[in-house]
């Protein structure tokens, strides 16, 4: 199914959900105010459903809004987002019966930062970006340039193994398969692991020196649902609100531990960081550790206990290392 067919069906389904009173809210995407950009659409109004869109730029993980909205919600969810929804159900933050998941099998999203780097142009200086299966054509000043799609997809999309929502009420489109044989660009876990400890420390020191503690990484993360984040505690004060690099690093490390087993590798933390800190190098590593030690992937089974709240006596105990 093509995007516009999926989009058409989505609009109909969303409208029906509101009309029949099955949900009070629809949470999806609409055209944003900047070139290529999409923006979350949260609405109660059935007429707004005509604005819903599906395209290669629907970046936001909309499940972040679920804990905030009171009432039943129909939500548009890609593979990773649907797992975030399930993870929130596992954590009892939301109830399954309050959510209608309109799943979108996701062929991967286009990372505008990669496009900008590839062409040394900002997004508003580009003409069009058109995806055709495994190619992408980008026009500048009327001239089209052709690239393999893997050059411009988000790192987490390139590494995504579960692009089709597993938990859904309505699946818009045919299930899709993971993109194979590709290397990520920004997330250099292997490279970092191969660097001597001191060098790696210096790398993170430099990266976290830029952090301004805007907390966009935390606020955009559906797994960060604490009413009050530990960084905001003053008794005890775990870390200072002052953006010293050491405190910034501790903030991120603790956040990472808190979302272990909840993180679905949606990549939003890294995408929104205005200081371009490669946060996914940490979250992806944690994702892999969780998988390796516990054979657990976040948000795959709504009936499973959340990873860090469950313990089996038979579990391996060599996880502290």
């Amino acid at each position, binding site marked *: 199914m093509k995007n516009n067919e999926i989009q058409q069906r989505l609009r109909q389904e969303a409208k029906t959900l509101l009309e029949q009173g099955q949900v009070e809210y629809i949470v999806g995407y609409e055209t944003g*105010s*900047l*070139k290529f*950009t999409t923006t*979350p659409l949260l609405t109660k109004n059935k007429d707004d459903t005509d604005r819903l869109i599906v395209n290669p730029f629907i970046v936001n993980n909309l499940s972040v809004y679920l804990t*905030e909205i009171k009432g039943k919600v129909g939500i548009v969810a890609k593979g990773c987002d649907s797992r975030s929804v399930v993870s929130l159900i596992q954590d009892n933050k939301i109830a399954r019966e309050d959510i209608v998941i309109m799943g979108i099998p996701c062929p991967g999203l286009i990372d505008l930062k990669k496009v900008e780097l590839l062409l040394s142009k900002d997004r508003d200086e580009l003409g069009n970006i058109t995806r055709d299966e495994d190619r992408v054509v980008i026009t500048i000043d009327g001239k089209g340039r052709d690239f393999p799609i893997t050059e411009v997809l988000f790192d987490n999309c390139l590494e995504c193994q579960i692009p089709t929502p597993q938990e859904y009420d309505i699946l818009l489109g045919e299930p899709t398969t993971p993109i194979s044989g590709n290397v990520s660009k920004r997330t250099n876990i292997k490279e970092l692991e191969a660097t001597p400890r001191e060098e790696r420390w210096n790398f993170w020191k430099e990266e976290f020196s830029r952090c301004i503690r*805007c907390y966009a990484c935390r606020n*955009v993360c559906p797994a960060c649902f604490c009413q009050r984040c530990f960084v905001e505690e003053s008794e005890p004060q775990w870390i200072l609100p*002052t953006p010293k690099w050491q405190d910034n690093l501790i903030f991120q490390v603790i956040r990472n531990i808190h979302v272990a087993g909840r993180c679905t590798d949606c990549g939003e933390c890294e995408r929104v960081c205005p200081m*371009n800190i490669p946060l996914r190098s940490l979250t992806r590593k944690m994702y892999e550790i969780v998988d390796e030690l516990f054979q657990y992937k976040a948000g795959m089974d709504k009936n499973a206990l959340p990873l860090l709240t469950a313990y089996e006596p038979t579990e391996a105990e060599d996880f502290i290392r």
Partner: protein
Amino acid sequence: MSGSKIINKKDIGKLLSQWNEEFVILVPSKEGDTTKMAKWDGKDTGFIDWYRNTVQASKTNFFPPMEEMFSFQKDKEGYHIGLASSDKHKQLIFAIRPCDANALAILDVAFKDGYEDPYYLSRRKDTLLIGLGCINPYDSCFCTSLGSSPFDSTNVDIMFTDIGEEFFIEEVTEAGKELVAKTEGLREASKVDEAKASKVKEASYNKVTRKIDTRDIDKKLLACFENKDYWEKVSAKCISCGICTFLCPTCYCFDINDELVRKQGTRFRSWDSCAFPIYTEMPVENPRLEKWRRVRQKVCHKFEFFPMNFGVVACTGCGRCIRLCGVNWDITQAIESVPAII
């Protein structure tokens, strides 16, 4: 336009070196895929080709994300206060955009109101601003709706205009005039140069296509203050992070914290944001617990309270809050949808 000068772009390095003898020079700089005004390395002038505007506004150079205010220490005799070491030096910011220079003029008002902030003001006093007009504004820019333009030289000392191979240089303030007078390697601008500059400015003005109507905006916002439906709708997708306020060139809220290591203490101040649920949580709690109240505060502070108190809108149309927002929350859409007064 008498007194205007010309310099060839390839001589910018020489020009900056000359100025470097008297000033610490800050230029648009890349830092790990992000950008800000940072100390010139004495060589690289590549920014002329890539620079549109920096991710962090020049506010950072005067009001950094964090700074030490003073240190304190306790012994048998009591507390001892040590003033923060000041990095007093004359500095020159090269290629600041008009929106960011205008923003500094707004911050000046805030940091002088009632109490003169020595940290901010001392840095400001010793700084010369060399503006560079925009020939390629972003699609998020809307300076022309705020009485400004891509070539607004109101708040710079010297203004540069890109006319192709060369820069057209205009003196704006006395300090700017003095600096130009003692600068070597500039040639007098001709009528042709002047015409070129005017053409560039006009073309650039027309490239700013995002518009908002700010007429009576303070009154409209006042009238809609209690309109919860409007504010709830407008704020729905905001995720309450600090990107828009921290990167805003005119936002100036800060928090103060003490760091104590044994008996050695340091008092820091760091950026704070009205978007945060725990903002201003001093005696009891934030009176703006609900998101719509916080979004309202942000919009009204810029477009209602600030103009009412100081006669100027606290937004320069730089567009960072739109460009950098993770959910594409757009202040121009909010302003445009403020209900008309009935």
